[in-house]
């Protein structure tokens, strides 16, 4: 029966992820609507529940336009290069101690490594469309994602030092007593900010800065190719929110020993808080500028992350406190 799990499981996961993307988009629009004293989408179906379904259906039935002067092959494969890593990273994420696919020893690094492939897809997609706005968006995106990958990786080193492992399941197990958000508060903040930047979301949504670059790297994309880029964006929200939950919020572990809810529900609750936070930020904050973005990554986040590593290393040797850092 094991092999059945490995065949049906990923398909199921893909289905779950697509369902999440569908309703995350709806939820995002609803949240931003509420923030702006609007009801949000409410026309298609009761409470607007079929809005995104209708949108996806619209995108799929749209004419597929490939610009004539575009690099045809690259233009067509770029959405795939972008999307595939977004799904690949889900392989190592343990949702509970039983629902997981690959229990990789280097799970955390695997996530970071695979997610960096997406940048290439975005860069290729932006370049191949032969559009200047898209090119600018792609360049911004690549620069941003490479710059923020460094604080992102650096910020989790504190967690790795505390948990003594790169394996995500063991990292969750190490948070048995205290979630890493408390001893690793600096790391958490840096990770959260860097992950928002990695996700290209407000206030770091420069690659698709609507008011400047019209739509950023996917200006030229239509129909289902465009849908792929959107899918990637939200699949990464799914992955990143899961990762944040696992690394800092204790994964599926119940707080205060409240085990009356099953682990999966706890995971989903924590996960939902992170997702809501992302949408909430989007409804509130303006956008940074490119140079400020870079300065922020290199001058603020990176030193902070390094300081966090140093602090963790020091505190690990202090009596009594070291129990939190183990």
């Amino acid at each position, binding site marked *: 029966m094991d092999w059945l799990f490995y065949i049906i499981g990923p398909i199921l996961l893909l289905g779950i992820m697509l369902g999440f993307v569908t309703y995350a988009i709806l939820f995002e629009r609803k949240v931003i609507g*509420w*923030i*702006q*004293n*609007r*009801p949000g989408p409410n026309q298609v179906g009761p409470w607007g529940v079929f809005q995104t379904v209708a949108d996806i259906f619209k995108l799929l039935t749209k004419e597929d336009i490939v610009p004539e002067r575009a690099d045809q092959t690259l233009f067509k494969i770029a959405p795939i290069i972008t999307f595939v890593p977004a799904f690949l990273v889900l392989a190592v994420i343990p949702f509970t101690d039983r629902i997981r696919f690959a229990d990789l020893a280097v799970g955390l690094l695997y996530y970071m490594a695979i997610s960096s492939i997406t940048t290439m897809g975005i860069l290729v997609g932006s370049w191949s469309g032969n559009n200047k706005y898209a090119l600018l968006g792609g360049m911004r995106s690549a620069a941003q994602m490479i710059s923020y990958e460094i604080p992102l990786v650096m910020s989790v080193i504190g967690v790795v030092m505390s948990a003594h492992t790169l394996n995500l399941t063991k990292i969750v197990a190490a948070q048995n007593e205290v979630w890493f958000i408390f001893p690793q508060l600096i790391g958490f903040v840096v990770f959260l900010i860097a992950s928002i930047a990695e996700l290209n979301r407000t206030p770091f949504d420069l690659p698709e800065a609507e008011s400047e670059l019209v739509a950023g790297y996917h200006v030229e994309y239509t129909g289902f190719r465009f849908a792929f880029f959107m899918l990637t964006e939200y699949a990464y929200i799914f992955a990143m929110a899961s990762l944040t939950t696992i690394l800092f919020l204790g994964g599926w572990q119940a707080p205060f020993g409240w085990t009356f809810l099953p682990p999966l529900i706890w995971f989903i609750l924590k996960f939902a808080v992170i997702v809501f936070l992302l949408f*909430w*930020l989007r409804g*509130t*904050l303006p956008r940074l500028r490119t140079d400020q973005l870079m300065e922020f990554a290199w001058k603020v986040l990176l030193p902070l992350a390094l300081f966090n590593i140093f602090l963790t290393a020091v505190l690990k040797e202090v009596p009594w406190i070291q129990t939190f850092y183990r």
Partner: protein
Amino acid sequence: MFGLVKGLGLTLKNMVKPRVTYKYPHEPLEMPNRFRGIQYFIPELCIVCNQCVRICPTDCITLTGKKSDDPNVKGKVIDTYEINFEICILCDLCTEVCPTEAVVMTNHYELATYSRDDLYKDMEWLSQNNTLVRKENTLHPLPKKTGAKKA
């Protein structure tokens, strides 16, 4: 950092405030009495003075008069009266100058059609557009009437 947190607090507070959206296509919008909507034309009152045609800034009104069938009535009576809503800007000047208030504004604002031809409204249509008619009309710009304020 504190400024960002304050902003976040405000947006969170707004999430529970009542919604302000009009449910427009489902519930019609109530327009105030003075709203300048599609005109209502009353042929019986028209004295074919042509003032509305002359004042119209976009020349969207055309009218013709004819001799009255009733020989007792002096002057002309209206024969055709058309407003082209492709170019009408609903500026209210025609109702302002009309000495008999034969043309008045209504609260109707739905002008969307599938054909441009439908925007060419004739006398019959305009005289049947008689719901939600504006109750008070403007102060007349003529000096003799300025004293009679209606507000």
